[in-house]
């Protein structure tokens, strides 16, 4: 509850600190506009047209269902990966043997391109939700797993001894000893996985689904509708930015408050 309250209270100051980021985004828009002027609207529509189209899509209500479908798929896959990856990673981190054995497997899974998983998933799950969800899951899993593993491995031995001596029960060891330390490794991994999940889900939908933002992208591409294509791309990017900077980043600050006070 205090977490929620602090999160809400922190937003204005946090947004104010975002002017620098906004300025650099404005520069990017200017460059976009420049390229558009140089090559013409058929190659690259200008930002105004793109955002106009984006607004149309949202006002007409066409964008919401697609966005909801994509978000559902990405979040299901991501949530699964976060749950499974965090639990497995922490468990593996407790045992030197397990973490040694996990390393090459993680490298293999991480090294397999998401498109390869997608092809397999299409064979296994067909053209339903299972395909994008599985692809997102398998692409995010190793990222989260490694974060949890590293976090658990790097906990100070001295603190573990202290916990043993003071007879901390396993629940306290988890919530008062391991999690607060592991969180500073897990959070960046989760944010990383979030980015991966959005990129992968759009790719998976583009190739395997008949709805969702990826499918909408495929349709607008086949109509050679550059404005709509860019509008969808902007939707994906903006949603990702909103979730990361409005939700995860403030939570991370709150959880890591003990680090910042000096």
């Amino acid at each position, binding site marked *: 509850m205090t977490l929620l309250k602090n999160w809400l209270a922190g937003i204005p100051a946090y947004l104010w600190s975002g002017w620098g980021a906004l300025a650099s985004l404005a520069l990017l828009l200017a460059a976009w506009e420049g390229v558009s002027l140089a090559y013409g609207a058929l190659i690259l529509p200008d930002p105004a047209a793109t955002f106009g189209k984006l607004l149309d899509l949202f006002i007409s209500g066409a964008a919401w269902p697609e966005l909801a479908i994509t978000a559902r798929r990405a979040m299901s896959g991501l949530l699964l990966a976060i749950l499974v990856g965090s639990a497995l990673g922490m468990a593996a981190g407790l045992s030197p043997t397990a973490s040694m054995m996990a390393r090459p497997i993680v490298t293999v899974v991480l090294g397999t391109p998401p498109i390869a998983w997608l092809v397999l998933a299409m064979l296994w799950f067909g053209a339903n939700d299972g395909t994008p969800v599985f692809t997102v899951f398998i692409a995010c899993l190793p990222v989260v797993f490694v974060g949890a593993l590293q976090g658990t491995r790097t906990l100070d031995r001295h603190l573990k001894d202290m916990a043993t001596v003071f007879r*901390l029960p396993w629940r306290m060891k988890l919530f008062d000893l391991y999690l*607060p330390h592991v969180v500073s490794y897990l959070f960046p991994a989760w944010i990383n996985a979030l980015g991966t999940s959005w990129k992968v889900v759009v790719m998976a939908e583009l190739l395997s689904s008949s709805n969702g933002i990826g499918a909408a992208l495929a349709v607008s591409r086949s109509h050679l509708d550059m404005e709509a294509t860019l509008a969808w791309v902007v939707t994906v990017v903006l949603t990702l930015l909103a979730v990361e900077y409005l939700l995860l980043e403030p939570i991370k600050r709150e959880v890591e408050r003990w680090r910042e006070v000096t």
Partner: protein
Amino acid sequence: MLHLSGVAHAYALRTVLEDITLELPPGRILALVGPSGCGKTTLLHLCAGLLTLQTGTLENRYTRPAVMFQQPRLLPWKTTRDNIALGLKAAGLPRAEWQLRAQAMGHAVGLDAAALDQFPHQLSGGMQSRAALARALVLEPDLLLMDEPFSALDIGLKAQLYRLLLEHQNARNVAVLIITHDLMEAVRLADTILVMAADPGRIVHRFALDTPAAARNDDFVHATTAQFLHAPDVRASFGLP
């Protein structure tokens, strides 16, 4: 009663402890002194149950042991108050009670309300040591194991914490095993001093003090330390000519 007999310990092929025999009855303070690397910390970890006994017998009848380590080892993400209360919370006490008792013990070791609300890295080294002492004492232990607990502190702070420790020890009849390389500290606090020598770690000298710790003044400590340093075994152990 803590009783060790014929205890030996080895890391791989290196023997660090050999034939350690000692006894710690309730209410007594036993100091272990010796040069660095003579296996003092290993011995304490054996007593605390952090290492598995390899050879010999170790009998520990105390039911509420507490440990104070060389470094404060406070959890950086918990306030000082919550750190002090750690053992109480682990014992399953209700929140209101462990908060109250941690607060009282914090005040007793000289940490004010502001310090109790701060995180460990905001405190000075001396305050962190106080918090670590409070975390051990708040459990009302019957056995206190201390590993060079005051080695990083200045003499004024040391004197304060000695007084706190002795008051608490006296009032509750706590048995204390304290490791130190500071002979004056040993002479000030202990009823019995055991001198260890290295390679392998073994006990080479026993020294008993009859004057009660509370009655020892600076002159007594200086004189007794000088006398203690005349023993050939003690000089040899520290490599003094």
